[in-house]
């Protein structure tokens, strides 16, 4: 059972980080590997369990009217209460003046993970 389904929406603090696995594939931003390693939200396994999310779930982040769907991955280097994202077009879609930390609302999603092109050519304000 996906308990995350019962979470309607809550706010979460997100730290933007550098990730060497993503850096390894960042030369080809059209590639699937870059997308797989960028369109992700890392949660600490214990925090993910508390929140009701499992690895592989798709979640929707929303901030200031912009929404992103990301794949949940576990990492024990993620904040104990919060999340982290690798620096990329996905994090920069939501980021504000502070390029290292921001808050966004999180909710479970049945949709597909957002693609790079959806952002590049997005008309969202």
């Amino acid at each position, binding site marked *: 059972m996906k308990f995350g389904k019962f979470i309607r929406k809550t706010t979460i603090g997100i730290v933007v980080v550098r990730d*060497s696995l993503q850096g390894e594939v960042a030369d080809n931003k059209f590639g699937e590997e870059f997308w797989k390693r960028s369109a992700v939200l890392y949660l600490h396994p214990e925090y993910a369990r508390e929140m009701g999310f499992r690895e592989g779930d798709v979640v929707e982040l929303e901030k200031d009217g912009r929404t992103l769907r990301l794949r949940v991955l576990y990492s024990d280097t993620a904040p104990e209460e919060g999340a982290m994202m690798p620096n990329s077009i996905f994090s920069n879609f939501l980021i504000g003046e502070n390029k*290292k930390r921001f808050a966004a609302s999180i909710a479970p999603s049945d949709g597909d993970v957002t693609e790079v092109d959806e952002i590049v050519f997005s008309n969202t304000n």
Partner: protein
Amino acid sequence: MATCTGCSCLCPDIVVQAGVLNACRKGSSIFMHSKDNRAKPMVSGREVDMEVALEKATEMLSSSEKLAIYGMDTIPLEAQEVAIKLAERKEAFIDDNSTFCLGDFVEMVLRGILPSTTLDEAKSNAYVIFYWGTDPFQSLSRHMSLYTYYPRAGKRQRGYEEDRYLVVVDVRRSHTAKLAKKNARFIKVDSDDALVEGFLSTMDGRAGNYYEDTARILKEMQRGRFNVIFGGLGLKYGLKGKYEKFVEMMRKMNELAEVYFIPAGFHANMRGFNELMFEKTGFVNRYSFDTETSRPEYEFSELVRNDAIDTALVIGSDPVNSLPFDVAQKLRKKNLILIDPKLSLTSKIAEVVIPSAITGVDQGGTMVRSDGVRIKIDPLWEAEWSDRKILNELLRGVR
């Protein structure tokens, strides 16, 4: 040996044969995939001859009345110099990633506000090694093994188990923080200011924030005599642009022992750009050759947001990936020329794409390491069009 330009470590010991030896993941990828995903000359989304792309770019630059030149942190000093000349010729704005990266710290080092040293000195002498707001395990993967924590060198022959004291300051238990076990401290901060205040209180003889940690670390600093703080983006944003207390902390620490600061974690030649600009203008970034000064509103993102430019020349950077979305979105409406060795997200929206070379692979030159040491970089082979040659061509043609 080849030199890797994947980050500001500029690792000089890379062996490129059938495979790549000594490089980190990112560095290996640069050499192994150097021929993949290369940019081609394009105008309005159509592939053209290089001469046509250069001609179109020259025409756009010549007709621009409000030009910004942006990026340049991955190209050699010799090419950065030409880009700066071009900005001067056009009385343009010029800026790089350092405005939102570690430019503030580089500027404080160049102005002598923060005492600094070299990575080679750190390798031979440093005892307390701080990583504050940076996770070198991920962002500068060989920093610790090549220059700081792990080497047995100079006065530090007994290895990290005895001869180094590691301090990691972060908002989360990063991979680097996980190394903080014996002879080490991990300080989880919610506010970097609070830790700075904690050090200041302890040095004033009062028990403040993080007293147990700060008292022990200061004692270790006195014991080690030569200590280095490597500060990253987490520290920059944690201090929210207010550096006075941090500078005061550094000054007071230096009354107890030698404590140096080296900015940690940025593009290969960001510091090179900052140094060239500082030598020429007295400022490190966000500069206008029209008003001959640097202002916050001259930051590239602000110029785009405020419609203060009509044309942007982006060199060796991918702002669509790395800048906030509202900026990337507005950039679509500008006349955009991109010079880059690889296809990137910015190449998707650029009016003109000019393919260039990769420093350390198919172009050589000089770059400045994060500690200010200039490194001569030889290419493995020479591309027909280097950044310097492209920019010289534009400089020659532009009115």
